[in-house]
C-alpha cells in the first residue's frame, strides 16, 4: 500500500464525542474515500489538542493546519477544497500556534516554551494504537530501565529530576518513592490516582484520553522502582472514555508483553487493573482512596502509618497523580538532568492546566513552571474575552483567588509560596468584573459543604457555618464581624481538620479577604444585630439533630 501523503487527526475526547466528533470522523473517511483519496489521506482518531470551546477539532498533518467547529455537513466542502483542490478553508481554521504540539520547539520565545513532556503525544497519535505510542519513543524508558538500571538507580534518577507531585500538594516524587521502596513486603502496590474531581480540573482526563500508554508506562516504571507487582488505576465513574481507553491500553500492553509476567524477559512481573470510583470528592485524598478501593466508605485514615508502610490491604502502597506518572517516562528516557533544565529550578518540568473562564481560548495547556499567570492569560488563553481581568482562581475550588497584583508571579510552588499561595491541582479560572467575590465564595463553599465526608467535626460543622456566612454576605446581610469570624473559622479548620478537604476552604477564603476585603465589606449590613448566643446554640443543636 502506498504511504499516505496526509493524515487527518480528529480530536475525539469526552467533550467532542458529545458534539459529534465520531460522526465527523466517519463522514471524513467516507468523503475522502469517495474522492478516491482513501489511499493517500488517512483519517485517525486522537486525543485532545487543547482547545475545549472550539467544537470538533481536526488537524491535517504534515500541513500543520487545524480546523475547528467541524460538523458532518461541512465535511464535503472541506474535503473538496483542502484535499482535492489543495487549498485550506480559511474560515474554519483555528489560530493554531498554541494548539498543535510542536516537537521541534520552534517557538520564537526560545527557552521559555520548551516542548511538551506530558502532552507531547496528545493530538498527534491514536490513543488506541500501541504501535503509534511505541513509534514515538513509547516504552523506550521501560525497556531502558529494565535493561540498564537497578530499581535503586531508578528511584535516584527520579529524585535527581526534582519532580514534585502534580496532584496539588507538590511533594517530591522521588522521596515518596524511596519510602515505599525501602519497605520489605511480599507484595507492594502502585496506585494511579485518577479520581480527579476538583471543579474546573480535567487535565488528568485529557491525559488518559489522549495518551493512556504514557500513564501505563509511568506506572510500570514506578512498579519496577519500588518492587511492586500490582498496579491500580482508580478512575472516577463519570470518566467513561478514560476508563475505556485505559482498559484498552492495558490489554494492548499485555498482548505486547509490556505488562504481565516477565516483562521484556527481565524477570519483572507487573500488571494493572482498573478500579471505578462511586463518586466522592474526598476519595482524592490518598488514604480515603485506599479505603474506597477496599470497598469501604471513603473516610481518610489516621496517618501514620503512611500508605508507604501500610496502604492498600495493609501492604506498602505508593499513590501518585496521573500527571506525575506521565512525567516519569520522559525523565527516564532523557535523564534527570535534561528534565531539571526545564522550567523553574525549584519545581522543574512543566505543568498541565485547564484554563477556563472569560477568556478567548479555553482548554488544555502545558507550560514550563517558569511562566507567569500573565503569560498564560495573554499567550495561551488569548486574553480576556469580555471585560477586564478581575481575578483568577488558581487550582480548582480549593485554590487561591488572585488579583491583578499576582499576574507576574511565576506559576510554581516556590514562587507562589513566597507570596503565601499554592499551585493547586491544575485549573485556572479567569474572571472579569461581572463576578462578585461573595457570590463566587458562596459557590465554592457549597461544593465543600456537599463534599465534606462527615468524619470530623471541624469540617462537617465548619463547612455548614461557612456556607451560612457566605450566604449572608452574598445577600448583603452579613453581621459586623462576619469576615473576621470566617477567617478565624478557616484557620481553625486548617489546623485541626482531619484531612486536606477540611483544610481546603482556607485558601479561597483567606485570599479573597486579602485581595477583596473592601468588596466583601459591602456584604455586611452595619445595622444588623447578631443573634444572642443562646439562639446560636439552639440553632447549632437544630443542625446537629
Amino acid at each position, binding site marked *: 500500500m502506498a504511504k499516505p501523503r496526509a493524515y487527518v487527526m480528529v480530536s475525539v475526547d469526552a467533550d467532542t464525542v458529545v*458534539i459529534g466528533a465520531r460522526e465527523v470522523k466517519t463522514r471524513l473517511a467516507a468523503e475522502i474515500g469517495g474522492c478516491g483519496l482513501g489511499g493517500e489521506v488517512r483519517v485517525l482518531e486522537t486525543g485532545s489538542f487543547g482547545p*475545549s*470551546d472550539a467544537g470538533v477539532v481536526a488537524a491535517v498533518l504534515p500541513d500543520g493546519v487545524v480546523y475547528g467547529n467541524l460538523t458532518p455537513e461541512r465535511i464535503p466542502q472541506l474535503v473538496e477544497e483542502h484535499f482535492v483542490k489543495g487549498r485550506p478553508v480559511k474560515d474554519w481554521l483555528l489560530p493554531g500556534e498554541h494548539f498543535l504540539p510542536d516537537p521541534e520547539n520552534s517557538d520564537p520565545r526560545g527557552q521559555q516554551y520548551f516542548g511538551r513532556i506530558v502532552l507531547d503525544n496528545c493530538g498527534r497519535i491514536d490513543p488506541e494504537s500501541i504501535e503509534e505510542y511505541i513509534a514515538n519513543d513509547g516504552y523506550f524508558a521501560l525497556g531502558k530501565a529494565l535493561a540498564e538500571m537497578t530499581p535503586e538507580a531508578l528511584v535516584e534518577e527520579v529524585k535527581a529530576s526534582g519532580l514534585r507531585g502534580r496532584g496539588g500538594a507538590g511533594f517530591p516524587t522521588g522521596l515518596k518513592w524511596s519510602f515505599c521502596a525501602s519497605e520489605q513486603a511480599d507484595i507492594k502496590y502502585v496506585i494511579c490516582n485518577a479520581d480527579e474531581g*476538583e471543579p*474546573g480540573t*480535567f487535565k488528568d482526563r485529557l491525559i488518559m484520553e489522549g495518551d493512556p500508554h504514557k500513564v501505563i508506562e509511568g506506572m510500570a516504571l514506578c512498579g519496577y522502582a519500588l518492587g511492586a507487582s500490582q498496579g491500580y488505576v482508580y478512575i472516577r465513574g463519570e470518566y467513561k472514555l478514560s476508563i475505556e481507553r485505559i482498559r484498552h491500553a492495558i490489554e494492548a500492553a499485555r498482548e505486547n508483553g509490556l505488562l504481565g509476567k516477565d516483562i521484556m524477559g527481565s524477570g519483572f512481573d507487573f500488571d494493572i487493573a482498573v478500579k471505578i470510583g462511586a463518586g466522592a470528592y474526598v476519595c482524592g485524598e490518598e488514604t480515603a482512596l485506599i479505603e474506597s478501593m477496599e470497598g469501604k*466508605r471513603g473516610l481518610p485514615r489516621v496517618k501514620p502509618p503512611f500508605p508507604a508502610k501500610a496502604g492498600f490491604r495493609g501492604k506498602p502502597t505508593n499513590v501518585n497523580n496521573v500527571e506525575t506518572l506521565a512525567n516519569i517516562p520522559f525523565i527516564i528516557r532523557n535523564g534527570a538532568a535534561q528534565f531539571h533544565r526545564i522550567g523553574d529550578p525549584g519545581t522543574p518540568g512543566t505543568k498541565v492546566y485547564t484554563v477556563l473562564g472569560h477568556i478567548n481560548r479555553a482548554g488544555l495547556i502545558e507550560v514550563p513552571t517558569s511562566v507567569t499567570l500573565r503569560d498564560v492569560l495573554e499567550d495561551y488563553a488569548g486574553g480576556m474575552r469580555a471585560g477586564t481581568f478581575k481575578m483568577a482562581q488558581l487550582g480548582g475550588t480549593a485554590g487561591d483567588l488572585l488579583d491583578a497584583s499576582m499576574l507576574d508571579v511565576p506559576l510554581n510552588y516556590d514562587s507562589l509560596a513566597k507570596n503565601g499561595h499554592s499551585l493547586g491541582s491544575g485549573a485556572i479560572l479567569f474572571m472579569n468584573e461581572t463576578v462578585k467575590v461573595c457570590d463566587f465564595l458562596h459557590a465554592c463553599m457549597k*461544593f465543600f459543604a456537599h463534599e465534606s465526608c462527615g468524619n470530623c467535626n471541624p469540617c462537617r460543622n465548619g463547612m455548614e457555618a461557612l456556607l451560612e456566612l457566605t450566604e449572608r454576605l452574598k445577600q448583603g446581610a452579613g453581621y459586623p464581624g462576619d469576615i473576621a469570624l470566617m477567617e478565624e473559622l478557616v484557620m481553625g479548620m486548617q489546623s485541626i481538620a482531619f484531612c486536606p478537604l477540611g483544610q481546603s476552604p482556607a485558601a479561597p477564603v483567606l485570599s479573597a479577604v486579602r485581595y477583596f476585603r473592601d468588596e466583601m465589606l459591602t456584604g455586611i449590613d452595619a445595622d444588623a444585630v447578631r443573634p444572642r448566643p443562646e439562639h446560636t446554640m439552639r440553632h447549632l443543636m437544630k443542625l446537629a439533630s
Partner: protein
Amino acid sequence: MANTCECEGSCTSVVYEELDAFMADCPKGRDRLIPVLQKAQELFGYLPVEVQEYVAQALELPVSEVYGVVTFYHYFTMEPRGRHTINVCLGTECYVRGAKKIVEALSENLNIKMGGTTEDRRFSLTTQRCFGACGLAPVIMINDDVHGRVTPKKIAGILAQYE
C-alpha cells in the same frame, strides 16, 4: 431500567440471578463490595434495603456496612429514580456560566424540586460536582448523554428527546 418494571415476580428473580453470577465472578474479598453495588444499581435502578440485605448476606458482611457505603457515595441511591436521570453540573465553571438558571428552568419545566422525581417517573433531577466538561459549560447530563452550553430556552427541546 429494571425499576420501571411492573412485574414483581419472575422478572426480579432473573435480575437476582444476574447479580449472583456477577458476584461469583468477582475476586473474593472485601474489595468487591463497591463493584457489586454498582452492578446491583445498574440492574435494579436503585438500591432498596432488600437488595442491600441480599448483597450483605451474599458477601458475608453486616448490613450496616453495606448501608454505610451506599449512603456515602453519590452514585448510589435508595430511592427509585425516573426512567431518565438529569444531572446538573454545579462545578465552579458551570456556576459562573449560569448553572443556577438551568436548575430553575428544569424544576419549573418538570414541576419538581431538586432531588425529586416526576409523578410519571419520567425524570429525576439531581445535581453533581464537576463533570470535567468545563469547556461546554453549563453542562447537564441525562443518563449517559452530556448536553453542553445549555440555556433555559433549550431545556424543553432537550427534554423532548427523552420519553
